[in-house]
Each structure stands twice: as C-alpha cells, then as structure tokens.
C-alpha cells in the first residue's frame, strides 16, 4: 500500500504504487493473475472517471484475458472486492486474484472545496429522505452516537480518547497521513462538525491506494512467501434510509456479519489478538467494539479510557492508527486494513507490533451504516 495523504497523480499510477509491490510480496507474476477486482468510489463524481478497472489493469500490465471489474460500496468498497476475490478462489472460478483500491478525494489534491466535497461524500445517503433534510456522512454516525450517549452515558471525553489512542498508534506508522499525537484537550477544543463530533473526532479526506493478492488455500505455500489465511468473511446490509434501521445505535448489520464470520472461522471475539475497525468517526469505533462483541454493549467508552484498546491493552484496536490517523482514501480503506493485519500476523509491524498475534479481525462499514464487511484472518502455524 502507499502512504496515505495528498496525491495529484492519475489513479492508475497511484494504484500501481500499491499493486506492483503487493504482487512482488506475494511472489506473483503479472501473468499469474486471473482476475483483478478494483475498488473506487468517487472517481465518477470527482475526476469524471468511471469504468476504471480496464484502464488501471492496462497500466499495471495485466494482460488481456484477465477478468477485471470495479466495485463500489461506499466506504466498504475494498472489503466488498476482497469478499468477491475470496469467494472466486474458494469456488475455483479463479486461482489468483489481485484485489485493492485507489481513491483521490482530498480537497487539496483535487481543488474541490470542503463544502462541495462534503456534498459529494454525502452521495451515499438516500437522496430524498436523508440528503434532503441535510444529513451528512458525519451526521449519520453522530445520530447513532448521540443515542449511544443517551442510553449508556458515553461522554465526549470518552470519544476524544478514541482519537488520542489512534493518533498515538498512527505516530508509529510511517504511512499515516496525520501521524502526530493529539491530546483530549485538543480534540475537545476543535470546532464542531456534526455534534457530538468535532474536527478531531473525524477521519481526514485522504488519497492513497492499497492492494492484496488472494490465492487458493492449497496453492498459497507454492509461491515461496508467508501466507495468511482468510478464516472468514461476511458482507451484510442494513436498511436505507437510517430511519428504517432497527434500534440505532445497534448497527445490526455488523452484528450479523460478525456472527457469520466467527462461525466460518471457528473462533470468537475473545480469541482475537488484533483488530482494525472502521473509525471514520470516534463514535464509529465505539459502536464497532460493541457490535463485534469485543466489548459488551455500553462499555466501549470506559474500555477505551482504561486503555484496553491500546497496543498494550487486552484488545488492541487500530494499531495502524485507523482511518482517524492513517487516513481514509475510501476505495482503498478495506484492503489497507488487510495489509496492516497481514503484517501484524507475520510479525512485521515494528514499533506498533501486537506481540504474538495469530488471529485478527477487520471491520469495514459503508454508506450510511447500511453495509458492513467483517473479515477474520489467521496466521499459519
């Protein structure tokens, strides 16, 4: 994967910076790739570029005959592409699938001002019944989080601790867009975006790319590298608009996806050593910890303050710095989580290594809490 930040280069060049090293890392030649699943969300709205898969495939030298396709499922795009790659090799349709994503959506890199970019990001909301009253991406998570605060007493200070923790982790990640540490006071003094979220409760606009290679279980050893198993992956949807979702802040689709993934993997939340969650906003990490079963409902705020989700805690969450610190180039986020967790399971994460990790979990949410993909990874012993 690339460093996350601000880029002005073409999408295909940006993706090549992630894809070519990923193929080298996997011991895969271009001619080995049977299929290429590419995630990109806003190319049409921002860059006037759709149908990107053939263009990107051509740029990175995938020969004609490779099955190429673009995926879009809002912020869960990369994980959705991964799910299809896993299913394709499981069923034997393909032997080797390159999967990843790239996005250019920073105001700095595109020249689009923040309020217009906020409008474009809001396109994942229902036009008639969510965009019209003025709901934004931040405010849907804000609606869930306000209710969580009402029901469980979660506080703005607890939310701020999520940001502080993830910036601390990001300070050890050279790929992070905002890798400097923050304090609770700095978070609480930053301007309101959508209450209860302040600027420093929100992930940034980011550019970047990520890629992974998926191969069949039995072939994995033959490439001469250290493979990591996808032990389970589940993609679940929720109703749209959010008014029809059952019992916010339950994020019911995450609970279904987690149950399904753990069933496939044969282990449970208590067995997970390291987790990457979709912390697009601090409140989103709180909801995720509970919906995944890592913490009981209502306790994620106190668990964060107690340090349980830090690298040194009993449930380390977002060692990469998460979307909050590392950045969130939308279509690249899902597979970027897989890159981080693969390195963690291989013991390659340096200063931010979670020691003795053998089981990992990724949580990627898309749109207005309407899509979730949960993935379980396991080291080979």
């Amino acid at each position, binding site marked *: 994967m690339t460093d996350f930040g601000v880029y002005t280069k073409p999408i295909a060049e940006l993706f090549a910076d992630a894809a070519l090293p990923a193929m080298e890392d996997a011991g895969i030649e271009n001619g080995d790739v049977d299929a290429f699943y590419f995630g990109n969300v806003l190319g049409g709205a921002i860059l006037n570029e759709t149908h990107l898969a053939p263009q990107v495939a051509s740029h990175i030298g995938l020969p004609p005959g490779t099955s190429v396709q673009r995926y879009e499922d809002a912020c869960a795009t990369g994980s959705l592409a991964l799910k299809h790659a896993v299913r394709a090799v499981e069923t034997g349709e393909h032997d080797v699938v390159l999967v990843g994503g790239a996005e250019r959506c920073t105001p700095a890199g595109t020249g689009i001002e*923040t*309020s*217009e970019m*906020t*409008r474009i990001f*809001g396109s994942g909301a229902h*036009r*008639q*019944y*969510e*965009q*019209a*009253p*003025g*709901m*934004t991406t*931040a*405010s849907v998570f*804000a*609606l*869930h989080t*306000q*209710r969580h605060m*009402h029901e469980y007493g979660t506080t703005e200070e607890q939310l701020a601790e999520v940001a502080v923790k993830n910036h601390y982790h990001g300070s050890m990640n050279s790929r992070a867009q905002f890798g400097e540490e923050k304090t609770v006071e700095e978070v609480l003094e930053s*301007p*309101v*975006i*959508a*209450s*209860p979220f302040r600027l420093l409760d929100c992930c940034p606009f980011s550019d970047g790319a990520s890629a992974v290679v998926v191969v069949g279980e039995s072939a994995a050893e033959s490439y001469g590298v250290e493979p990591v198993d996808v032990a389970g992956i589940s993609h679940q949807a929720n*109703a749209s*608009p*959010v*008014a*029809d979702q059952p019992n*916010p802040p339950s994020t019911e689709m995450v609970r279904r996806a987690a149950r399904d993934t753990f069933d496939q993997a044969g282990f449970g939340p208590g067995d997970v050593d390291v987790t990457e969650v979709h912390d697009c906003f601090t409140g989103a990490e709180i909801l995720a910890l509970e919906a995944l079963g890592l913490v009981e409902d209502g306790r994620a705020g106190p668990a964060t303050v107690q340090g349980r989700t830090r690298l040194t805690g009993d449930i380390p969450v977002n060692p990469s710095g998460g979307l909050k610190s590392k950045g969130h180039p939308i279509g690249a986020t899902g597979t970027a989580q897989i890159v981080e967790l693969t390195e963690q399971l291989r013991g390659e994460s340096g200063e931010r290594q979670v020691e003795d990790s053998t089981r990992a979990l990724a949580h990627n949410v898309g749109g207005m809490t309407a899509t979730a993909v949960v993935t379980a990874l396991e080291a080979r012993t």
Partner: protein
Amino acid sequence: MSNRPEQGQRAASDDESERLTHERWTRALEAGEPMGLSCGDCGYVTGTPKAACVRCGSRDVSTVSLPTSGTVYTKSTIEIAPGNQGRGYQIALIDLGDARMLGRIADGDHVEIDDTVELTGTYEYDGDIVGVFEAR
C-alpha cells in the same frame, strides 16, 4: 403486472393510484398530513415510500396516516454541510406513532432526545421536500 380485479380484493400496492410514491408522500407532507406504510404481514410501519415491506419483504403494505407530533429519538447539529444546506441546523430521527422519520428542525429551534416535536412545515433542498419540526 396486470390488474385482475375479478380475483377479488387486491393489496393496495398492486394498484398504482393507491401506491405510496415519492410524489404522493411529498404532496401529503406539504398538506401537513404525513403518510407512511404499514405491513399487513409483520406489522412494521415505515415513514417513507417503499415498493414492499423493508423488514419482511411482503407486498401487503398499505398507506397509513402518521401523526403530526412525535418524539425525538436522536439528533445532531451540523456545522459542516453542502453549501446550499447552510450551517448550524439540526436534524433528528423522530418517532411519529409507529414510524420513524428523519426530519429537519426549524431554524433557531433546538431539540433534545425525548422532546415532543410537531410538524410545522416543509423544507426544500435540490427539488426534494422534507418535514420541518419544532419543539412543542
């Protein structure tokens, strides 16, 4: 799908003039008489138009009148928004009887969770109409 009245009573959704479309929902809201859909199979009530029940998939859904006053389930005040939406406005998920609807809170008003609110008008954004609510 053809209408076959000789087969007896049809579900309301089979008759296009009875179906709750976005246009019909909008006109009703503008008249201050909000409408939703009730499912004849699972009983779920939605506050916005659908072609079938969002919970169970049944096509046995019928249009129902929703009350004009309700309770705030959750809310957010938005400071960073698309240019034409302004800033410093509040949105809220509002329980109107058995249905839940996302509404806009009237400019200058401020609501909290569990407050009682009333539909007092409509707001237009980019050609679409939504309900505006005020604390009572």
